[in-house]
């Protein structure tokens, strides 16, 4: 995308490039383009663009229980939504979750990647083991962790028994249920984050560390003053991916807490689903969906900016 967008600015160059490569707008290309692009455009149009516009449209109306639009209210639904205490608390819960998941995922991913980047015999075994959660889907993660969190037979409860500690109600207390979802999400994220960060750390030129070693610089100082700055573009990339994924979380919440207890984990996508498919409040659900879209679009744009930089460098 970015190579072409840089040539945009300089039209003469673009023309030259075109002539050099022998590209011309011709009728044949138009025929091929319709065949090559047709199927994708049809699918994206039907299942991405049409539903987005439709959702935006519904969000500006009142709807009946059949999902039909009744009265045009403009931005009325948005005004109502952002002044509703339950929506505000839902947004707060979502943001808390996203922030906690992102910080913990990045911090632990960095710790693992930094450890596994050492040149030690047998290190590749640890690299494989640390990336293992990439193969875990939401339902498997939920089943493993539900068994650990279970208050009567769970592993945490058993451990409390061994050490005579009070049993923590992981799933019935609002604050703890949030942590249960955060812990499970971070665990699932770790494999992917670890692999990406390890790749970045490995590509930092060795000579930088060798020079630091000669100067007698401590490894902690090297980590914060060489590794972190050198991999900062990748850190940024992984952070935006983690943030986007966390905002879209649904499966783990549905499986572990169902948004409860007392809405403590009732996050944005779970609300969208419940308001539409349980309460039949399609206008409210669509309004929430548009708010989600704005958030996701913002972070995706940030990511595109990152890609743009990487391509130009």
């Amino acid at each position, binding site marked *: 995308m970015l190579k072409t967008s840089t040539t945009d600015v300089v039209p003469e160059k673009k023309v030259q490039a075109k002539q050099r490569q022998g590209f011309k707008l011709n009728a044949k290309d138009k025929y091929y383009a319709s065949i090559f692009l047709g199927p994708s455009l049809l*699918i994206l149009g039907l299942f991405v663009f049409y539903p987005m516009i439709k959702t935006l449209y519904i969000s500006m109306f009142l709807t009946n229980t059949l999902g039909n639009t009744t009265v045009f209210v403009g931005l009325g639904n948005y005004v109502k939504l952002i002044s509703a205490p339950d929506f505000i608390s839902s947004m707060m819960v979502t943001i808390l979750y996203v922030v906690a998941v992102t910080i913990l995922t990045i911090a632990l991913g960095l710790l693992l990647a930094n450890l596994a980047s050492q040149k030690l015999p047998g290190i590749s075994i640890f690299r494989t083991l640390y990336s293992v959660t990439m193969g875990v889907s939401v339902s498997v993660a939920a089943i493993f962790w539900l068994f650990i969190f279970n208050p009567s037979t769970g592993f945490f409860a058993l451990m409390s028994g061994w050490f005579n500690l009070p049993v923590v109600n992981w799933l019935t207390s609002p604050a703890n249920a949030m942590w249960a979802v955060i812990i499970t999400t971070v665990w699932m994220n770790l494999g992917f984050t670890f692999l990406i960060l390890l790749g970045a750390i490995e590509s930092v030129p060795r000579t930088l560390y060798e020079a630091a070693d000669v100067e007698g610089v401590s490894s902690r100082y090297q980590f914060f003053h060489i590794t972190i700055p050198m991999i900062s573009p990748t850190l940024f990339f992984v952070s935006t991916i983690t943030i986007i994924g966390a905002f879209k979380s649904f499966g783990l919440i549905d499986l572990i807490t169902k948004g409860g207890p007392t809405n403590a984990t009732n996050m944005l996508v779970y609300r969208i689903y419940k308001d539409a498919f349980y309460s039949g409040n399609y206008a409210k659900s669509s309004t929430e969906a548009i708010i989600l879209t704005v958030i996701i679009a913002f972070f995706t744009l940030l990511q595109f900016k990152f890609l743009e930089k990487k391509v130009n460098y």
Partner: protein
Amino acid sequence: MANFDESAILKRVFSYILLIALAVVILAPFFIGIWASFLPTMDIAKGDLFSTNVSFNNYVSAFTKTPILRYLANTVVIATVTMFAQLIFCSMSAYAFVFLKFKYQKTIFSLFLITMMLPFEAEIIPNFATIKSMGLLDNYAALIIPFLTSAFGTFMLRQSFMQTPAELKEASDIEGLNHFQFYWHIVLPYNKISMITLGAYSFLGAWNQYLWPMLTTFSNNSRVIQNGLKQLQSEETFNDWGMIQASAAIIVIPTIIVLFVGQHYFKSGMNEGAVK
């Protein structure tokens, strides 16, 4: 000198202790779950995790008493079809953006980029209505048709196709290959690694779908494994933990094997995606 060696050895020992401790913490949920899958539920319910009544009974009952094989078969079919469809349609659209020149090319490409910013989760209401009006609810097609192509896949392959040497195009023009032949015989084989990466990515993507299949399928004929596990869990009147852990193990072990085998591709593919 001796001192230096000693501290170096100590540092190594400390590194290994930390590496092993972290591996244990990360793998603990697997170990606990898979260990429980070999124990009778009665013992698990009593909190007797060190029971010696180890057996494959939970696996036998998962396979014989639950539709888990049906769920697995449904998921494999849906994920495989989705994967091949995305490989074909994404590579075709990527080809158009790289090797063809046509009107509104920039505009159409921007549309693809915009698509990447729109979360599917925000579009479930109209999409549900569309699938319902097509009469495809509770059908494999409901889980496949919306994902026949992907803007991300197109973008990724386009980045890769742009690296195809111009000489290949010139040579094939001289040979008189048309676009279909050039696409099929030259571009696809040349970009094999990116194709494999996208294949793995789209297969896992389909395999891990949760919200959409939950909305559009409601019988064992089309239910996929992610929702199937939830179904098993909620159907049990008292939680048959042993069997549920066994079901989770049955699902996770093949994906982990695939990952280990394909790790090399994944790693290079993901870093490519991150860097390009």
